């Protein structure tokens, strides 16, 4: 799962920020919207960016400023696992595959980037062949070869040096992948000792898998497949000396402070229609005060909130109260889901009926409000997968959307069936430095107490939540913690990208576990295996829906909301739309006008 960072200190100024919002309400729009806010053309309207391109323009020049309340785990394409960074990385790196440039569901369509076409699978599904475009140059003028793609994948195997990115290649590739230590410890002369990838010529890359995996094209959209020239790789410090293949290159990067990108003269626009080179400079300000980020957007000092997770409470109040500002905002369903897990290995949740009692007892309305309400929080969820994920099927086993305040009568029936007619006690883990999650935990505690399920709240810091607490099955069981708050976003917008790490049996690990429901259902596992061997997308999507159904039947996850985010787009920002694949606006085509 790609991470969406929440900045712990966001809460620090929240009270003051709210007061400021109150102070500044009353229709004073002069400080917002860059003065008049009327220059964005006829398409500027609330939510226009969800389904259409707002302020389309081919205007070149200007400085596009991104403000980020946090900082990337790394700008190195091979060492990052942040959604926003994957979106932004297309400015300076070119993965084999990417997504089509268009709003709505069209934006989830796979198209080649560095590759000339989608991969060709062998009959047994174990080999995938890609051809890369000829004549693609790095910023220094040298030519990209298939070996550079192989090397980029190889380097992600050295987790001691590049620990942040996902593990897909190590898990899926065959050959010697299980024991390959990465190129830095590779004994082969050319450091190309990974036998799972062949490069028969300068433009061909062949991946050998240990088992069929039909999502290969999706996998190769992640920046880990973007080429890295072996001679220029400096390992951990490559993040400060990235060699670009994208439309921009790094002019300077002060770690955790500021990055400045300028156009890459070696980039050929005709080869890469999915990205553009409009601004004459891109500035990224890191570790900014979250409220200041919003104010700078409203004042026109910055154009994009890098995190893309929506404005803070103060700015939200301002935007929603002012029709002019509101017309420059979108509130898309992001593709991210908030929910809580029910650990099926912690008594009494070993009993299905006890888990179902919780499904029925949860008050979805108070939980939705805890997460920010319908605008900032999202729509009440009834499935594990959000509607933007390919394979989503609408269903509602526990009447979450019809009986939004829960169904205590049904919950009591379930308690009776699980042998706990008077309820029981259990623990609830949550991230105490996240205000919405804290409120959600309290709301859940209140709603479950109505049917006799008493929750003890256990707050933990975000940074160690998965590594030391909720993600450690032994810890959960030894402390009697049966519930845990969580959230999830897909690595790519189909069922595998969303569900695999969340509910498949093999994903259970002793620390850093994200299958906190501890679901190891053979039905679910077999469906994953079946889908991996099917190349037809429609058939695969049908299976994701079946998995979602089965998981909800197993009652190890209680969906709270399909997340939404109020995103402000300043009038000077051009080519703005929400991209369902990246679950953010499509940064790589944006420009500035005026």
């Amino acid at each position, binding site marked *: 799962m790609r991470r969406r960072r929440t900045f712990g200190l966001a809460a620090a100024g929240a009270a003051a920020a709210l007061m400021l919002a109150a102070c500044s309400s009353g229709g004073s729009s*002069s*400080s917002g919207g860059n003065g008049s806010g009327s220059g964005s053309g006829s398409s500027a309207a609330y939510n226009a960016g969800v389904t259409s391109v707002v302020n389309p323009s081919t205007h070149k020049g200007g400085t596009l400023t991104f403000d980020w309340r946090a900082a990337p785990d790394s700008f190195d394409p091979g060492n990052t696992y942040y959604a926003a960074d994957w979106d932004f990385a297309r400015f300076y790196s070119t993965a084999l595959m990417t997504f089509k440039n268009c709003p709505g569901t069209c934006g989830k369509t796979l198209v080649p980037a560095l590759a000339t076409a989608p991969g060709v699978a062998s009959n047994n599904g174990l080999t995938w062949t890609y051809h890369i475009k000829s004549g693609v140059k790095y910023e220094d003028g040298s030519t990209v070869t298939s070996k550079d793609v192989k090397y980029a994948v190889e380097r992600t195997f050295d987790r001691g040096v590049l620990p942040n990115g996902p593990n897909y290649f190590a898990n899926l590739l065959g050959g010697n992948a299980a024991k390959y230590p990465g190129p830095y410890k590779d004994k082969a002369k050319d450091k190309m000792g990974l036998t799972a990838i062949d490069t028969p010529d300068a433009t061909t890359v062949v991946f050998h898998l240990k088992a069929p995996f039909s999502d290969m094209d999706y996998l190769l959209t992640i920046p880990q497949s973007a080429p890295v020239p072996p001679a220029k790789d*400096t390992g951990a410090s490559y993040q400060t000396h990235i060699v670009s293949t994208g439309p921009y290159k790094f002019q300077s990067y002060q770690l955790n402070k500021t990055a400045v990108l300028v156009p890459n003269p070696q980039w050929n626009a005709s080869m890469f229609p999915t990205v553009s080179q409009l601004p004459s400079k891109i500035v990224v300000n890191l570790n900014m*005060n979250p409220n200041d980020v919003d104010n700078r957007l409203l004042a026109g000092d910055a154009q994009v909130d890098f995190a893309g997770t929506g404005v803070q409470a103060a700015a939200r109040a301002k935007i929603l109260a002012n029709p002019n500002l509101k017309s420059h905002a979108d509130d898309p369903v992001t593709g991210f889901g908030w929910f809580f897990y029910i650990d099926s290995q912690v008594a009494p949740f070993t009993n299905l009926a006890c888990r179902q009692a919780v499904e029925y007892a949860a008050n979805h309305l108070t939980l939705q409000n805890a997460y920010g309400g319908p605008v900032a929080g999202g729509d009440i969820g009834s499935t594990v997968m959000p509607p933007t994920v390919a394979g989503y099927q609408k269903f509602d086993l526990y009447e979450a959307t019809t009986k939004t305040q829960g169904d205590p009568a049904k919950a009591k029936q379930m308690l009776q069936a699980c042998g706990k007619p008077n309820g029981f006690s259990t623990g609830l883990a949550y991230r105490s430095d996240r205000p919405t999650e804290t409120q959600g935990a309290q709301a859940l505690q209140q709603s479950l107490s109505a049917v006799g399920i008493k929750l003890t709240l256990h707050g933990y*810091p975000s940074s160690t939540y998965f590594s030391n607490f909720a993600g450690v099955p032994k810890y959960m069981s030894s402390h009697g913690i049966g519930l845990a708050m969580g959230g999830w976003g897909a690595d790519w917008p189909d069922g595998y990208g969303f569900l695999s790490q969340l509910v498949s049996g093999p994903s259970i690990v002793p620390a850093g576990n994200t299958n906190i429901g501890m679901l190891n259902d053979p039905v679910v596992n077999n469906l994953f295996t079946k889908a991996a061997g099917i190349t037809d997308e429609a058939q695969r999507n049908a299976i994701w829906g079946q998995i979602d159904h089965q998981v909800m039947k197993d009652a190890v996850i209680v969906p709270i909301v399909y997340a939404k985010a109020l995103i402000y787009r300043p009038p000077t920002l051009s080519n703005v739309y929400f991209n369902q694949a990246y679950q953010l606006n499509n940064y790589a085509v944006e420009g500035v006008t005026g």
Partner: protein
Amino acid sequence: MVTFIIRRLVGTIFLLIVVSMITFAIFFLIPRLAGQNTYQLAAQYVGRNPTRPAVLAVERQLGLADPLYLQYGRFLRGILFGAHYRSGPDVTYCPPPCFGYSFRSQLPVWPQMISDVPVTLSLAIGASILWLIGGVSIGVLSALRKGTLFDRFSMGIALAGVSLPVFFTGLISLELFSYKWPLFPNVQYVPITSNPVEWARNLVLPWIVLAFLYAALYARLTRAGMLETMSEDYIRTARAKGLPERKVIVKHGLRAALTPIVTIFGMDLGLLLGGAIITEVTFSLHGLGLFTVQAVNNQDLPEILGVTMLAAFFIVIANLVVDIFYAVVDPRVRF
């Protein structure tokens, strides 16, 4: 005097070693005593879905499985002689004083930390000049005009200054003077070496906000000190001898009242040099304060350790300077 300074410097080094041992123990020993093993510690630096080989690789890379005395020894050796880190194909050299290798950014801590010092230094020194001049002047005037409207008004403002937190006054000032009436638009740190005017323009609001808090405190302290001093017998004597009132106030009154001010100023400045956390976070200034917040949020132990040591260094040095300055302000003090 020289002996005194040497003695204090030796004491300072000893103190810093003790601080490093305590800090090291807090972050590396106590978690172990609380039951956390090195595998769990390493797991939090492997991103999402850490596989066992990945966690073990990180554990090895960061040396977390080594005995604590070895880790501490490595830490001290790095400070004195620098250290080498394998970061892929290259070996990165971290020159002394090397405070270790960041668990998060995978880069040495010291270069990151030292690049933040100019920001904190600019903020702290500018603000301290403002609050010292403003606070002491208002305190003296209030003391000399005790009970007047000016005294009541200035002490009322001082009370507000002490009471209002920086994240409130900071956000208010930004809202009013950066966004509503953009006298100081787009506040961002600009190095003094690249543009002194922009450097000052961008720091005016943070200086005022920070100085407002401290000046209020100093005004009240100065007023109290001056009131006490001005009622001393020797002031009456000085007046009786016919000394001009200005000389009585400045040379005999203020000088004596300044002694506690100098003490607290040294402490405050030392603390601020370790990072004006809330001011830096409010104004998004990338100084040591913001660095500290990020280090804590990321649970990056070497960074926390490094910034703690640097803050301790600033405080003990500030104390040393204050002690030396005592002799100048108060002739009774001799070493």
